[in-house]
C-alpha cells in the first residue's frame, strides 16, 4: 500500500532550534521517499502542534507519522494518542530524538543539523515498515498487597480497605506500628505518637477488608500488573494466634530476660513477649534464639515451659487459653493481588562506626531512637531522663547530622533530624528543667508547616544553640572541672572559637538510611535503587510513588527520608493510584512484545531461561515455546537468541531496524 508519511520537526522553544537548523531539517525531510508533508513548529506537543498532525492525517490521508523532537520517554504516548484520536493506529508513529540525542549534547550547529537530518531519515525509513498493532487488555485483580505495617503501610491499607477492596498487609515484626510506635511526642505539634497511631492500628486489626499477616515476610512475587502471585512466609510464633488473648501471664512467668529490639537496647523483654503494650495484633510471640525450651528441643531436651505449665508451687497457672504451641512451624501462604504497595521504611544509622563520637564506648552517648524510648512514658525508664548510673543529667548535648551530610557515610540530608532534635530539646527542657541543653547544628532545616515557629519556640525555651558540628566526644579531661564529664568538642562558628562543652549525656541525631536488606527486597519486587540506596521512584518530581515496575508502588521512608505528614500523603497517593486501576478493572498490555512463530519453533528451549521477566514457558505437548504477552517487556533477548529465527519482536523487526540503520548511513 502506498505510504504517505508526515514529518513534524519541533523547535522545542530554543532547546532544539537553538542548535539545530530546523528549517533545513524540514526542507531535507520534504525530499525523502514517501514523505508527503514536512512541517516545523515551536512546540509540537502542545494542542496546536498536535492539531497540525491530526489535521494532516485527516486532510492529506497520512498513514505514517514521524515527529522529530524530544525523547520518546517524554512524549511518545502523547503523539501516539494524537494519532489514535485522528484515526491512525498509534504504532504507525515513530519519533526521532533530536533533543537529548542531538541539540542537547552538541555545540557545533552545522554538525548537529546534519546529525538531526540523519536521525530524521532513519525514522522515516523505519516508519515505512511499521505495522498496525493492537494493545490487549487483561482483567485487574482488585486485591492489594501492602508490605510493611508502619504508618505508611497502615495509611495505605486503610484507604484501600475503606473503599471495600481486600488488602493483605504483611508486616515483618510481631506487631504493626513501625518506627512511629517507638516515638514519644511528634513535632511540631507535640502530639503523642501512640495516641494518634494506636487508633489507626486498632482499626487495621479489626477492619473486615484487611487481612493482617504479622510476623510474616514476602518471599516471592511473580506475575504482572493486575495479576501478581505473592508467596508469603508466616513465621512461627509458637503461639496460636486464634487462642492467645494477650493477657501477658506468660511474660510474667518467663525467666529469660534479653535486650528488647523495640527499646533499642536500653530495655529488656522476655523470651515470650509482646514488643510493646499496645501491639496489634495483641498477641505474644516466642523468640526461638533465646527461649530455653526451643533451644533445648534441638538437643532433645524438654526444659522450662513455664509459660505453658505455670508455677504450681506458687499457684500461678500457665496459659489458660492453651495458646502455646511449641510444635508450630513456618507456613507459606499464597495470595493473588493486582497491585503492590511497598512501605518497608528505614533503619537508623548505627553510629558505632564513627569512632570520635564515642557511641558504644561511653555509656551516656545514645542515639535518637534510644532517647525516644527513654522519654516515652511507657519506655524502660517510665519517661524519666536518666544516665546509665541512674542519676539525672545536669547537661545534655544533641549532635545534628550524625551520618548525614557526610561523604564518609551518607551524602544526603535526612530531612527530619533538625526537627526531632528540636523536639528532644523541648522534652529535655520539660523533664529536666534544671539541666542545660545544647544543640550543635550546621544548619537549621525547618521547612514544614509550623516548623520554623517550633524552632523559635525552642529558642524561647532557653536551649543553647551552637552553630558547629561536633568534632569529637571525649572523657579525657584537660581541666579539673572537666573530670567526670563528656566533653563535646566543636567550633562555635558564629563566634569563631573552638569550644569544649562539658555534658553528662550526648544524644546523636542519626541519619535515616535504607534497611540492611534493601537489595534483597528490591529484587523481590523488581525495584530499582538510587545512588543513596533508597528505592527508585519513576520520576522524582512528577511520579514519586510509582516505580518502573507497573503496579508496584513505593511509599514512605523506603523511598527517602521524610516526616510523618509526607509519609501519609505518599501513602494516600499510592492508594489512589491503586484504586484508579481497580476502578477501571482492566489494564492495557503493551503491544510491542515478542511473539513465537510456532511453525518455525524447533523446540530447542534456548529462549526459555534467557528471559529476564520469566515470560517464556514451554508447551511440552506441542514442543514449542510460548510467550506470556502480559509479562513480556519486548526486550528482544529471545528474538536475538533464537537459532531458528522463530521469534519476532513486534515493532522491532529486522526489516524495521535495518531500514533505520540505512537511514542513518545514507
Amino acid at each position, binding site marked *: 500500500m502506498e505510504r504517505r508519511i508526515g514529518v513534524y520537526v519541533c523547535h522545542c522553544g530554543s532547546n532544539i532550534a537553538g542548535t539545530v537548523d530546523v528549517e533545513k531539517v524540514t526542507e531535507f525531510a520534504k525530499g525523502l521517499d514517501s514523505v508527503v508533508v514536512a512541517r516545523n513548529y515551536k512546540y509540537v506537543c502542545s494542542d496546536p502542534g498536535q492539531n497540525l498532525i491530526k489535521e494532516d492525517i485527516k486532510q492529506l490521508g497520512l498513514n505514517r507519522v514521524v515527529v522529530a523532537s524530544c525523547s520518546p520517554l517524554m512524549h511518545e504516548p502523547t503523539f501516539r494518542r494524537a494519532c489514535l484520536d485522528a484515526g491512525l493506529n498509534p504504532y504507525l508513529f515513530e519519533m526521532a530524538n533530536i533533543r537529548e540525542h542531538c541539540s542537547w549534547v552538541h555545540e557545533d550547529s552545522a554538525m548537529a543539523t546534519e546529525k538531526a537530518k540523519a536521525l530524521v531519515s532513519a525514522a522515516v525509513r523505519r516508519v515505512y515498515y511499521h505495522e498496525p498493532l493492537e494493545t490487549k487488555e487483561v482483567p485487574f485483580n482488585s486485591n492489594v498487597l501492602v508490605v510493611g505495617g508502619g504508618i505508611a503501610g497502615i495509611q495505605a491499607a486503610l484507604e484501600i480497605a475503606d473503599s471495600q477492596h481486600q488488602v493483605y498487609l504483611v508486616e515483618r515484626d510481631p506487631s504493626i506500628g513501625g518506627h512511629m510506635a517507638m516515638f514519644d511526642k511528634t513535632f511540631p505539634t507535640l502530639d503523642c505518637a501512640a495516641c494518634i497511631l494506636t487508633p489507626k492500628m486498632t482499626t487495621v486489626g479489626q477492619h473486615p477488608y484487611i487481612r493482617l499477616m504479622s510476623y510474616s515476610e514476602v518471599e516471592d512475587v511473580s506475575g504482572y500488573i493486575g495479576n501478581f502471585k505473592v508467596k508469603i512466609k508466616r513465621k512461627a510464633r509458637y503461639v496460636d494466634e486464634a487462642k492467645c488473648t494477650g493477657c501477658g501471664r506468660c511474660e510474667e512467668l518467663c525467666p529469660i530476660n534479653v535486650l528488647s529490639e523495640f527499646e533499642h537496647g536500653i530495655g529488656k523483654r522476655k523470651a515470650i513477649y509482646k514488643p510493646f503494650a499496645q501491639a496489634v495484633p495483641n498477641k505474644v510471640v516466642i523468640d526461638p534464639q533465646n527461649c530455653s525450651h526451643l533451644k533445648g528441643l534441638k538437643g532433645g531436651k524438654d526444659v522450662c515451659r513455664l509459660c505453658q505449665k505455670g508455677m504450681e508451687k506458687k499457684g500461678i497457672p500457665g496459659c489458660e487459653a492453651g495458646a502455646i504451641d511449641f510444635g508450630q512451624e513456618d507456613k507459606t501462604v499464597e495470595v493473588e493481588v493486582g497491585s503492590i504497595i511497598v512501605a518497608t521504611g528505614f533503619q537508623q544509622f548505627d553510629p558505632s562506626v564513627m*569512632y*570520635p563520637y564515642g557511641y558504644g564506648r561511653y555509656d551516656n552517648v545514645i542515639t535518637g531512637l534510644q532517647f525516644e524510648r527513654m522519654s516515652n512514658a511507657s519506655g524502660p525508664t517510665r519517661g524519666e531522663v536518666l544516665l546509665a548510673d541512674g542519676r539525672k543529667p545536669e547537661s545534655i548535648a544533641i549532635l545534628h547530622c550524625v551520618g548525614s551530610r557526610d561523604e564518609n557515610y551518607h551524602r544526603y540530608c535526612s530531612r527530619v533530624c533538625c526537627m526531632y532534635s528540636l523536639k528532644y530539646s523541648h522534652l529535655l527542657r520539660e523533664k529536666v528543667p534544671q539541666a542545660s541543653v545544647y544543640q550543635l547544628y550546621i544548619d537549621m532545616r525547618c521547612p514544614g508547616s509550623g516548623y520554623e515557629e517550633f524552632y523559635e519556640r525552642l529558642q524561647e525555651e532557653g536551649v543553647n544553640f551552637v552553630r558547629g558540628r561536633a568534632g569529637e566526644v*571525649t572523657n*579525657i579531661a*584537660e581541666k579539673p572541672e572537666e573530670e567526670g564529664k563528656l566533653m563535646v568538642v566543636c567550633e562555635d562558628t558564629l563566634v569563631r572559637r573552638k569550644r569544649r562543652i562539658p555534658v553528662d549525656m550526648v544524644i546523636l541525631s542519626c541519619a535515616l538510611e535504607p534497611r540492611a536488606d534493601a537489595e534483597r527486597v528490591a529484587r523481590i519486587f523488581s525495584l530499582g535503587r538510587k545512588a543513596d540506596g533508597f528505592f527508585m521512584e519513576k520520576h522524582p518530581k512528577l511520579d514519586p510513588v510509582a516505580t518502573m515496575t507497573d503496579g508496584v508502588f513505593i511509599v514512605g521512608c523506603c523511598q527517602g527520608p521524610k516526616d510523618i505528614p509526607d509519609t501519609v500523603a505518599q501513602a494516600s497517593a499510592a492508594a489512589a493510584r491503586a484504586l484508579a486501576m481497580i476502578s477501571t478493572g482492566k489494564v492495557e498490555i503493551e503491544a510491542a512484545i515478542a511473539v513465537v512463530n510456532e511453525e518455525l519453533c524447533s523446540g530447542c528451549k534456548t529462549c526459555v531461561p534467557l528471559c529476564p521477566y520469566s515470560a517464556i514457558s514451554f508447551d511440552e505437548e506441542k514442543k514449542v515455546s510460548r510467550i506470556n504477552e502480559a509479562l513480556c517487556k519486548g526486550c528482544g533477548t529471545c528474538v536475538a537468541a533464537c537459532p531458528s529465527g522463530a521469534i519476532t519482536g513486534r515493532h522491532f523487526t529486522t526489516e524495521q531496524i535495518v531500514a533505520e540503520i540505512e537511514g542513518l548511513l545514507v
Partner: protein
Amino acid sequence: MKYYAYYPGCSAEATGAGLGVSALAIAKPLDMELIELEDWTCCGTTAYGSLDESEAIVVAARNLALAEKTGLHLVTPCSNCFLTLSKANERLKEQPKLMAQVNEALAVANLEYHGSVRVRHLTEVLVKDIGLEVISTKVKRPLNGLKVAPYYGCQLVRPDYGFDDPEFPHSLDRLVESFGATVVPFPLKSHCCGGSLIISEEDLALDLMRKLLANAVGNGAECIVTPCPLCQTNLDAYRGRVNSKFKTNYDLPVLFVTQLMGVAFGIDGKDLGLKTNIVPAGKVLANYI
C-alpha cells in the same frame, strides 16, 4: 628473602639514629633485604611542600625515579617520608601535565619516572608482608609483663591509606603483642605530638606531648613504643622541657618499635642503638636484655 628499596630518610642518620640502626638489625632475622637507595636525597618533608607545592613534588620525584629503576617497593621507616613520598606519587599519577614537567626536569640528571613505584611504611611491611605469626616465631626473649603504650602518631595512619583505621588503629598494638608484651589502652595513640613545630612553636608542641605522656602513664604504661623518628625525638629528647614546663617527672622511655622488636629477638642493645635513647630504657628493659 624479601627485597625492598630502602629509603632511610634524613632523621634515620641523625636524631632518629636509633631507628636507622634497629631497622637494619631486625631486617636480618626476618629475611628482609633492605637495599639502601643509592644517593637518595631528602624527600622534602612537609616544609618544602608548604613553601612550594610543585617544586616539592619534583624533589620527592627524584627518589621515586631512583626507586623505579630497582623495580622494588620503596620502603621507609619514617612516617613523614612515607606521607611526603606517597603524596607526591599520587599527585604525579593524577596530573599527567605535572608528570611531564617533572620528567623534563629529571631528564637533566638522566632520570625519569613512570608512576609505577609503590611507597610503603616499614611498619606496614612488617605487619602485612612478614606477618605477625612469623615475627612471633623469631621472639627469643618474650617481653612478658612489659606494659607498652603503642604510639602511632598521625602520619602513619592519616590520611587514610587503607592500612589501618585512621582514628583508632590497631596494627601496632598487635605487633607489640606479638613480642609477648602487654599493650595498655591508649586513647590518644594517634594524636599529634607536635612534629617539627617543636622547634618554632615549642609551647604548643609541649602541650600536646604532655597530654600524650599523661594519657600513657595514666593507663599504666611503662614505656611508649613508636615507629616515627619525629615523635620519638620529641617525646624523648624534649622530655626535660615537658617536665620543666609542667612540673612533672615523666620518666617512661620511648623506644622505636624496631628497637623493642630487636630486644624481643634477643639482639644486642648496641646493635639497636639503645644508647641513643635519652630517657634511659635500661631499667624498664632490664628483665629482657
